[in-house]
């Protein structure tokens, strides 16, 4: 499996990372190096092996479906890069 510049551009798009074209080439070679390194896993026989879903035998706890917190708009919005009243502002999403 080898990634070219176009594949790198596509992955960057999926990852929402702005990637200058001159960086794509270098990154393609770095990613290919990593991918060829992890390729060795194909040599392991994993027939009838369950993929690990949890490192410890634990059941995910559920909390009671109840309101335990809230009413703190100032705390929630304290770190907002931009806000208007009690809302975050972002560029227009719908026309």
């Amino acid at each position, binding site marked *: 499996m080898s990634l070219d510049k176009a594949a790198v551009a596509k992955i960057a798009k999926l*990852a929402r990372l702005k990637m200058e074209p001159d960086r794509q080439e270098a990154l393609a070679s770095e990613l290919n190096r990593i991918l060829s390194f992890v390729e060795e896993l194909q040599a392991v026989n994993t027939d009838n092996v369950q993929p*690990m879903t949890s490192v410890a035998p634990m059941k995910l706890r559920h909390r009671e479906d109840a309101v335990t917190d809230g009413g703190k708009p100032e705390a929630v919005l304290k770190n907002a890069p931009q806000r208007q009243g009690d809302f975050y502002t972002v560029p227009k999403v719908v026309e």
Partner: protein
Amino acid sequence: MTIDPDKFTIASALEGLAKKEFTSVELTQGSIKAMQAAKPLNAMITETPEKALEMARAADARRAKGEAGLLEGIPLAIKDLFATQGVLTTAASHILDGFHPEYESTATANLWKQGAVMLGKLNLDEFAMGSSNETSYYGPVVNPWRAKDGTRLVPGGSSGGSAAAVSAGFALGATGTDTGGSIRQPASLCGITGIKPTYGRVSRWGIVAFASSLDQAGPMARTVRDCALMLQAMAGFDPKDSTSVDRPVPDYVANLDGGVKGMRIGIPREYRMDGMDPEIVALWEQGKQWLKEAGAEIVDINLPHTHYALATYYIVAPAEASSNLARYDGVRYGLRVPGKDLTEMYENTRGEGFGREVQRRIMIGTYVLSAGYYDAYYTKAQKVRTLIKKDFEQAFQRVDAILTPTAPNAAFPIGMKNDDPVTMYLNDVFTVPTSLAGLPGMSVPAGLSSGGLPLGLQLIGKPFEESQLLRVGRTLEKAANYTAKPFHWWES
């Protein structure tokens, strides 16, 4: 009067405080002075001297009333991956510019509850991704240890600031986090002790997430006893973390000197690799000898899937990271770089906010989780992870703990391994398998290389058997009698 923290361990400082030989304010003043003198190490991102003195005064007041906690009045430094209320928390990333959390991580809250004092926030690899501390937006941390010719060395990573702060002696202890070896490897490279507890032992709530099925916080300090004390304070059930394990925290200090008589210590054949540094091999042999002389039985064991651990890790960790780091989009906190629409704003913010190593891992993670490749990479890695864990389960039917080297090399020069990501990843070859299996592991300083640099040995324990692990660590520490400290070149 100020007190030089470099002359103390946590345990000996607690004795001095209890005997009223000095106050926490005096000790903290000494720590602040030493921290400020250590600026050339670049170990701190944010110093909080005023907060430290305020906490020290409160600690002295509590002690005077007879209400001393487990760490009452002890100055610690906190890896900047832990959210600290009202104090800048950056994960060493540009993307968290200006982020002042409105909450405190459970692990640090537990430390403050026991009376510890915060000196500030420590430098690290960006989002804890790195083994040398060179990926930080705030620049590399310099190891207090230097090569004989004066070359500046890396402290290891990602908890490199933590290891440097303790090794340089201005913090008596520090918090670290370990995803693939980020507590143990820097502890080894800086000549200090660090323990990564069992996955679930310390709450991860309020710690910036890297790879959630691997991340675990733990203490880094000068001695095994100090690590035991700090772990005692940090550990415990937390309903706010769904992976936190609900079981009592044993007294880690009580049985520390119980020795290893009758214990069985495993030596995994697969950790002896081709081309391994003969000094590391010799140190490992010495470690075996020490434990044997202390009454343990040495048993050869097999961990057949060891060779595949790094490859597994470099699929699983980036996959989880790419998902965890999706939350950094410039909307709710941190950096925002404008764009013509929402998507462009996301892309610009993330393109500018994340450094190269983080982008590389997000890209790998996005790729291995993408349609068409998910099974070939991610599912395959999760299956191999099952096999790695089974290897350990089988080994632990025969032995009580496992002894290996911590890192394949001593500290190396800044900039030396930057060219190739895979070369850098090899630093974690001995620590990653433990992380994949969720087991507790610790590094104990055991000797110096021919170049005069510290080298550590790693001990791996059964799940939730930190007490036993610490006991083996204490035995190793006693036998190694490691007392070396770096020359304080940064003060001259």
